[in-house]
């Protein structure tokens, strides 16, 4: 009869009409919204603001007219206006895309005009090392060293130190001439070894001495024997935090005090001093009403404990009966009663809200 196609067509036609209507509606609404006056972006000011965009700072030298009853709303509108001006300035800066062409738009701030003061005091200059003192005294200046040295024996340019270094060939030690004024019976090889060891030891000693004088980085953290309690505390703290987990799973030493509570949480909290006085008053009146009622308030802890005690007594009674029937006949077990009481006493300290497994 042609109904289905007609209906299908009509349905499609209907849907199309509805879609068109919806789109038209949306467009009309958008136009309306554009036309109606939004909060204007323009701000009127007597004196122009001064901007330090490097610090995201806007200085308003206009005298504020924020007094009287509408102070809050006036201050708020003042803040909004100044923020609007600052943001308008930021939009005027040269901008670019952060990561590639699709990254966020980023403005390039100029150099800050105002220098902010230091947070912490200047670090103390470190004392010079023994060599630095000596060099300063003698006027010795540092000369840049070459990485390759001419080795006469090998007739080659060899590296200064390391593998196959100049003068490090093991074969050259097969002979040591006894120097002119030396004892002929002295072992020159042993002497050379000994001298080398002494040099190394002296170098190490000087290095440690420099560390002790605080001339190297990490001063204050190495044990000197003359450290104050505060310095030692700081050193322990640094040591604790110098792990891969930044000290999160470090166990405490036997007598070390427990970790201080995380910052921001006071150990004991009190109500604010000048808090809501009306709320405080109402709380106190509630308390008074509770005190004056002369009815014993429901102590939740005691009620729960009492209930638990009764339950345990029931359970113990049941168990005791079973034991008596199964075990030796006729033996009066005092353990039943004792168990009951002991169990109750043991459990009395539980606070309210304990989950019964």
């Amino acid at each position, binding site marked *: 009869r042609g109904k289905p196609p007609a209906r299908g067509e009509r349905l499609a036609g209907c849907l199309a009409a509805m879609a068109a209507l919806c789109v038209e509606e949306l467009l009309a609404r958008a136009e309306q919204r554009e036309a109606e006056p939004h909060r204007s972006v323009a701000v009127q000011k007597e004196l122009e603001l001064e901007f330090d965009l490097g610090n995201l700072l806007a200085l308003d030298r206009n005298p504020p007219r924020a007094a009287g009853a509408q102070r809050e709303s006036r201050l708020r509108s003042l803040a909004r206006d100044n923020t609007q001006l600052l943001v308008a300035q930021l939009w005027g800066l040269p901008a670019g895309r952060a990561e590639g062409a699709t990254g966020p738009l980023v403005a390039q701030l100029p150099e800050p005009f105002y220098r902010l003061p230091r947070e912490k005091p200047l670090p103390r200059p470190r004392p010079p090392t023994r060599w630095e003192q000596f060099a300063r005294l003698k006027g010795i200046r540092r000369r840049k060293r070459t990485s390759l040295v001419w080795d006469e024996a090998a007739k080659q340019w060899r590296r200064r130190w390391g593998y196959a270094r100049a003068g490090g060939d093991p074969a050259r030690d097969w002979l040591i001439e006894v120097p002119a004024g030396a004892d002929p019976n002295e072992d020159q090889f042993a002497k050379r070894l000994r001298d080398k060891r002494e040099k190394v030891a002296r170098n190490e000693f000087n290095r440690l001495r420099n560390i002790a004088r605080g001339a190297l980085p990490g001063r204050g953290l190495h044990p000197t024997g003359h450290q104050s309690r505060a310095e030692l505390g700081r050193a322990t703290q640094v040591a604790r935090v110098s792990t891969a987990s930044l000290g999160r799973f470090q166990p405490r030493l036997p007598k070390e005090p427990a970790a201080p509570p995380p910052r921001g949480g006071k150990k004991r909290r009190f*109500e604010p*001093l*000048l808090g809501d*006085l009306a709320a405080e*008053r109402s709380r*106190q009146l509630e*308390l*008074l009403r509770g*005190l*004056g009622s002369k009815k014993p308030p429901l102590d939740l802890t005691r009620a729960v404990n009492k209930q638990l005690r009764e339950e345990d007594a029931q359970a113990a009674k049941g168990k005791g009966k079973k034991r008596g029937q199964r075990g030796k006949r006729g033996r009066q077990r005092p353990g039943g009663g004792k168990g009951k009481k002991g169990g109750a006493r043991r459990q009395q300290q539980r606070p309210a809200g304990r989950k019964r497994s």
Partner: protein
Amino acid sequence: MRPLTEEETRALFEKLAKYIGENIQLLVDRPDGSYCFRLHKDRVYYVSERILKVATSIPGDKLVALGTCFGKFTKTQKFRLHVTALDYLAPYAKGFGVAAKSTQDCRKVDPMAIVVFHQADVGEYVRHEETLT
């Protein structure tokens, strides 16, 4: 300086209730001004809101007292009422004293037993003016 905690407030009110009974709410909620209790160095002060706001600008270790001292909390957190609270408690004072024995015991007790502690007997000072030194 800080407001009292729940337990401290309860201890304070329980003590005051012994002297002025239910009239504590007249101290807490006054028609002629906003007054509150504040704790400073274990002493409880009854202070008006205006004075309290001014007192916040004084450093804690330099502040000696503020408002009226009602009493102090001892080291074991018991509240001890001071005589400086008298001016505020006097208008609302309850009767004579505290019963030493329960009602039933009062009937069975011998004639010389103590039945009432006259804690709030204000008239004693007037009656025995000559004998009291």
